[in-house]
């Protein structure tokens, strides 16, 4: 499409037996191509089958001197294309957006941009991060954004690489995280190399991710690229944040800037878009309901995009003396605040008279329950709220809802439903709430606050009592695991960059008061997120400085993207990864057991304790050796809880020295 130049490659490609190497040798092969063409003409000329006919020509002629030189000689230095290179201009565009890293597994379809990034661009802003899988590339950008608020760029083959990347893009989509995805694609069928490069080309590479990207494009000129890239960045960075995709033609990357564009090319200026805010009248009505509620409840999921979002949520809760349920897709509310009543979720929801949900991923599930039992396997739906409970919502996700993938969850009718970014809408809501609280309500609110303070203290004591059960068990309890980790990092400015399902113990036991203390989960629950996303977040925390990154890593998840460990070691990304090694795909362990019971059958266990097909045992994976082979300091498996503290202490020292460390721990299931 974009390869309009009449390059030597064009004529060389006419020869049927010209190899890719010669194809790439450019001008040096022009003569060889001529000779090859002569061969073809000779070989295909009509030949009369008579006795007078000269002997057949052999199928392979001896090369003449010119061809032999072309085949065996050192190619001449390639002539520099006239004018600046197209991919150099692309780097100029990319640099205007101050992107720190490009995460990538290398591929020929973006070789020109790759070369420009490291040689023309100096491998800075962005710096190339070598990944061993495209899923890792995207997930690193996912984690990096949640640690820093800045998006990364990922480069991949537009076909096979993007196929690898898709699950991670879906996770980012569900988690509302921007990643700038670029897929190389050699579009021009008349000029692209045959064989593998053609297998790796497609009409519309973006099609496979269009259902879960916010915007995509396939620019056909350099000016088009400049507009598309800046537009893609702008769209991705406007709440709700989401990944975007650009198909980047190899021809466009490789060709020089066209003569007519040299004087006219420009790079559009990026100006951030103000996030959408809830409607003013709806905000006032919501404030009136909240201010007059007897038992209001605030539920937050992806509400606090930034540290300021946390402050705003605290301000709203304190203004209302209302309990907050933190669903923990982000760090929304300090877990030490007396109004953080997450441990009392069921009781609060069932007694609420007004509920406000802020950026809930699944509002239905917040106020209803699905019981995967009974009704012949269909399950049971139950309301968790009283009849008449008023429901309010602020969410931006409705602004980008698509049809195919069901990440929009079940439909829930709301009494006041506001389309807008919750964090951006909170100042107006807080102001409206303060204005709506009458003086006679203040005393009742203060009394409610005191009751909540005591309820939280009681709930925290129950949490500690629950954590103490099976304290000395082996395999090690997830509560003990979490407490042991915290003992080693509590005096550091820690960032729990990812966590396996350990019954939420870190969020329940650790003091988490800063936005980066907890970065939330994967979004789409696609396996293979945790290791690379944690490393991406740790990269961001390293650059910010002073933060200690820790991850509680699931065993099944790690085996999707173990190569991410090498990337961490290669790029000296300090992170403490502690394995929650329960030796199974535990969610599926329970699912198969459930179905066996439902069908009144004993689940077949095979040689393990889990139903066949759900365990990761026999042989047991030596994760410590795996991590060590990738360049990590490592230890384990730790099975005795008494050994855990000392091992973690040594690992923390390694991480503080700037290296990644890994501790494998055999744990209870959840």
């Amino acid at each position, binding site marked *: 499409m974009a390869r309009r130049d009449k390059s030597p490659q064009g004529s060389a490609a006419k020869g049927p037996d010209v190899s890719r190497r010669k194809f790439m040798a450019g001008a040096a092969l022009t003569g060889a191509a001529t000779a090859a063409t002569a061969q073809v003409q000779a070989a295909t000329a009509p030949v009369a089958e008579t006795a007078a006919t000269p002997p057949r020509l052999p199928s392979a002629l001896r090369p003449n001197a010119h061809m032999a030189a072309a085949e065996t000689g050192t190619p001449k230095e390639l002539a520099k294309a006239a004018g600046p290179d197209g991919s150099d201009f692309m780097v100029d565009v990319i640099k205007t957006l101050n992107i720190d890293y490009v995460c990538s597994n290398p591929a020929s379809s973006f070789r020109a941009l790759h070369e420009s990034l490291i040689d023309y661009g100096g491998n800075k802003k962005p710096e190339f991060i070598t990944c061993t899988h495209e899923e890792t590339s995207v997930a690193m950008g996912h984690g990096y954004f949640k640690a820093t608020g800045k998006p990364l760029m990922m480069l991949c083959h537009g076909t096979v690489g993007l196929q690898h990347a898709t699950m991670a893009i879906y996770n980012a989509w569900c988690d509302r995280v921007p990643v700038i995805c670029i897929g190389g694609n050699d579009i021009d069928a008349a000029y692209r190399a045959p064989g593998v490069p053609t297998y790796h080309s497609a009409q519309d590479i973006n099609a496979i991710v269009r259902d879960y990207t916010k915007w995509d494009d396939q620019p056909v000129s350099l000016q088009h690229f400049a507009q598309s890239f800046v537009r893609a960045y702008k769209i991705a960075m406007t709440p709700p944040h989401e990944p975007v995709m650009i198909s980047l033609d190899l021809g466009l990357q490789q060709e020089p800037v066209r003569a007519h564009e040299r004087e006219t090319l420009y790079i559009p200026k990026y100006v951030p878009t103000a996030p959408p805010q809830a409607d003013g009248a709806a905000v006032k009505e919501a404030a009136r309901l909240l201010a007059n509620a007897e038992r209001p409840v605030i539920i937050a999921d992806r509400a606090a995009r930034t540290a300021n979002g946390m402050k705003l949520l605290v301000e709203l809760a304190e203004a209302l003396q209302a309990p907050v349920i933190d669903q923990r897709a982000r760090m929304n509310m300090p877990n030490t605040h007396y109004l953080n009543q997450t441990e009392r979720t069921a009781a609060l929801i069932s007694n609420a008279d007004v509920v406000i949900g802020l950026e809930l991923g699944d509002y239905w599930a917040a106020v209803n329950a699905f019981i995967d039992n009974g009704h012949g396997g269909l399950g049971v739906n139950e309301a968790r709220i009283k009849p008449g409970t008023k429901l309010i919502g602020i969410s931006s996700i409705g602004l980008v809802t698509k049809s195919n993938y069901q990440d929009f969850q079940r439909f829930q009718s709301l009494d006041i439903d506001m389309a807008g970014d919750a964090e951006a809408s909170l100042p107006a809501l807080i102001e409206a709430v303060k204005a709506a609280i009458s003086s006679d309500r203040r005393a009742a609110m203060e009394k409610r606050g005191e009751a909540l303070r005591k309820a939280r203290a009681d709930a925290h004591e129950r949490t500690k009592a629950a954590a103490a059960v099976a304290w000395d068990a082996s395999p090690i309890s997830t509560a003990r695991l979490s407490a042991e980790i915290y003992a080693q990092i509590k005096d550091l400015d820690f960032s729990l960059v990812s966590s396996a399902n350990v019954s939420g113990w870190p969020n329940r036991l650790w003091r988490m008061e800063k936005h980066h203390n907890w970065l939330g989960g994967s979004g789409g629950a696609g396996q293979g997120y945790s290791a690379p996303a944690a490393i991406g977040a740790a990269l961001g925390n390293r650059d910010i400085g002073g933060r200690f990154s820790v991850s509680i890593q699931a065993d099944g998840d790690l085996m999707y993207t173990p190569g991410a460990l090498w990337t961490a070691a290669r790029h000296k990304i300090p992170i403490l990864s502690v394995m929650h090694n329960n030796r199974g795909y535990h969610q599926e362990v329970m699912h198969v057991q459930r179905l066996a019971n439902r069908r009144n059958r004993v689940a077949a266990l095979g040689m393990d304790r889990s139903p066949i097909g759900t365990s990761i045992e026999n042989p047991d994976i030596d994760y410590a050796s795996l991590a060590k082979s990738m360049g990590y300091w490592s230890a384990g498996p730790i099975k005795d809880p008494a050994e855990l503290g000392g091992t973690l202490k040594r690992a923390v020292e390694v991480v503080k020295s700037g290296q990644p460390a890994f501790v494998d721990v055999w744990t*209870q299931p959840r």
Partner: protein
Amino acid sequence: MKSRSVVIGLAAFAAGLVLSQVSALAASAEKGKSAFLQHGCWQCHGYQGQGGVTGPKLAPNPIPFETLSNFVRTTNRAMPPFSKEILSDEDLADIYAYLAAVPKGPDPKDIPLLNQ
């Protein structure tokens, strides 16, 4: 954990509940530990019945046997029911014996890591 046998009837008597025929049988904590693993109870409740987000605490100090038994057989909540065809009365009694034998852990106030 040290293996030992318990008489289920004592616990039920203390709870003031009517004993079922099976619960009056002597049960084995050792067999119960195997049955606890074999039947997948550990999946949601942990290897020592300590509980977690997927299932409540079962031990130490389990609820009365009859209450537990009724729930196991007829639950229509998150836990799937276990019929007698897939979990015999004897195995259930043994499992209860195992849960009753789980020793009480330390007081959380005495665990420094829980008071950081």
